[in-house]
């Protein structure tokens, strides 16, 4: 019973995924095909990686809307290094270090200068995008060497390698947030930064680490971008941060901080992917797709909230009232 309660948001997502899959399979006869589904899943790896990067930041009660711009810096850097003939093994640490540094700049401004994260990352959203354009030049970068494309053009069985990468990253983040001190600190900071500071939690350092990690994840997503789309441009992934944020929030990570799990983020990405794939396979017009995603976000967050509120207001109507007011 407690297990069900604890994982209620994940359960809701699973139910929604099943419903979405049923709906999609009635929409389109092409939906229920393992190979197609897996190749569609490949498409959402980029968003999933950014979502996992954003996840600890949101748990800490902060936000980073510059990640898509960081991705562009990463993809353009990878592509350029590839064209320059640098082996992938050397390029990978370089790019991850650069993108982690970009993330760390956000983190330093938030944690040490005490600036609001939304404002800071709104600024770096533009600045990093400008940087990506500067690096890429007008034409963008093409002619990527095969070594860099391996991730996007290889399969393990029938599963695309990049999908496996996303699952591994999901597992790593589950471990990171569930078992390490970084994870514990993150939840503590998100619940109450003041109390955490008094309890000798290294608030600032933990914040910077989260931002740097998110930057590195965006860089990794940049590699996946290059490997899948065999090119890079300054405007890569422009506008995708709203989708990423939707995935994180839909995954049950409270935007106020202090709660949420990696499994939820993974399930939310799967849910969004299922719905999008279903609608695209059925050639649902673009406007309806926008409407459905917006409505889904509000319903998935709003309904449990509404139930919770009704329960609190009419405690006698429902026998079980042991709902603790705090987040997890």
């Amino acid at each position: 019973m407690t297990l069900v309660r604890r994982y209620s948001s994940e359960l809701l997502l699973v139910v929604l995924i099943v419903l979405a899959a049923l709906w999609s399979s009635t929409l389109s006869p092409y939906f229920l095909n393992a190979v197609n589904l897996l190749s569609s899943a490949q498409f959402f790896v980029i968003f999933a990686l950014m979502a996992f990067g954003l996840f600890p930041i949101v748990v800490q009660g902060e936000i980073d809307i510059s990640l898509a711009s960081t991705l562009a810096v990463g993809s353009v850097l990878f592509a350029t290094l590839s064209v320059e003939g640098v082996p992938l093994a050397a390029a990978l640490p370089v790019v991850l270090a650069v993108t982690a540094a970009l993330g760390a700049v956000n983190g330093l401004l938030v944690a040490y200068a005490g600036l609001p994260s939304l404002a800071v990352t709104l600024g770096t959203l533009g600045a990093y995008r400008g940087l990506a354009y500067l690096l890429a030049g007008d034409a963008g970068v093409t002619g990527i060497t095969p070594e860099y494309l391996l991730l996007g053009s290889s399969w393990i069985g029938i599963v695309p390698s990049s999908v496996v990468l996303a699952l591994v990253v999901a597992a790593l983040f589950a471990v990171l947030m569930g078992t390490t001190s970084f994870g514990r600190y993150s939840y503590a900071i998100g619940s109450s930064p003041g109390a955490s500071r008094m309890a000798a939690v290294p608030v600032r350092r933990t914040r910077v680490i989260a931002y740097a990690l998110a930057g590195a994840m965006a860089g990794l997503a940049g590699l996946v971008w290059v490997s899948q789309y065999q090119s890079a441009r300054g405007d890569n992934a422009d506008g995708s941060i709203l989708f990423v944020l939707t995935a994180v929030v839909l995954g049950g990570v409270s935007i106020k901080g202090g709660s949420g799990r990696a499994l939820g983020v993974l399930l939310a990405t799967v849910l969004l992917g299922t719905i999008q794939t279903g609608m695209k396979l059925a050639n649902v017009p673009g406007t309806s797709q926008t409407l459905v995603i917006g409505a889904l976000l509000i319903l998935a967050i709003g309904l449990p909230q509404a139930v919770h509120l009704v329960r609190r207001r009419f405690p006698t109507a429902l026998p079980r009232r042991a709902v603790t007011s705090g987040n997890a």
Partner: protein
Amino acid sequence: MNGHLRRRRRAVVTVVAAAAGLLLAACSTEAPTAPAAGGGGETQGEDASGDEDMKIFMAPKFTGLAYFEVAREGGERAGEELGIEFEYIGSDKAEATEQIATLTNAIPQAPDALVVSAIDGDAVAPALKQARDAGIKVVTYDADAAVDARDLFVNQLSYELAASTMLDAALLNSPEGGLVAFISASPTAPNHTAHVRIMKELIDTDPKYSSLSYVDTVQFAGDDATKSQELALNLIQANPDLKVIISSSAVSAPAAQQAIINAGKSGEVFATGVALPSSVRDFIKDGHSTAFMMWDPAELGYIATVAAHQLVTGEITAEEGQMIDAGEAGTYEVLADGEVQYNKPLMFTADNIDDFDF
């Protein structure tokens, strides 16, 4: 509480990790078994007669823009005449990832051909190649993709002709020539970039345009009306002797003209370039502007769809020198690299603006 929590998380982690591990262990041979699309295109063996079950999808850069909607009408007309199924697909977000998702999900539906305006010609290339591997013919229109990712590119205007027509329009507005500034869509749109580059070359070299000069820095408005207006105003401030603002974006050109009118500079500065006649009719009729240019997007969509159909039936194979017979819309030759040039620029002036209903 905390330990309890941690144990649960550990459990979840183990499950996820085990799942990932199993996958890796089960089959770690990385053989690129390209995900085969459901059926693939219909065989080329059949000839033009039995086309009832032929399916052609048209994917614009993004939906919701009037220009693409007009092109869609042309495609639909072709579909009706040829008796084939025609579907218009796409997202209303102007993002490359959205178009890639649209194209990827079109493949399992096994259309016989895709007619595409590429939002990022390089990034969509792998998806288009995947489609071609599955036996789907790919025709690009309006904006090309990488050459090896499509069979044909139906180009509305050769870049040279587009550039010279826009300069002609500029001279119609400002017959004595003068300083020209450019507002482009985005630095990554190859057709817009090419237009500006060739216009600069023509001004530098062609005596016909020697009365014109240009501002070297190109500004980008990303097909956004508000941004175009702000840029237009700032360009006027930056260059007091500015005569013409040229944009090959059908959003920017009319928006810039409106900004000029708002600023009370009508008659002193002109905006011109590519625009739908419906969006500039009032400017031309009220005498704020003399000329804008475009082509007939409906006919472009029509020709692209007809070309796609002929590729599927095997009438053409996209080889250089072949002819595409698009009936009333004319006959077009396939040029090098599978390019087909529609090349019928339209100049909208006070004399003919009422003849166009798009």
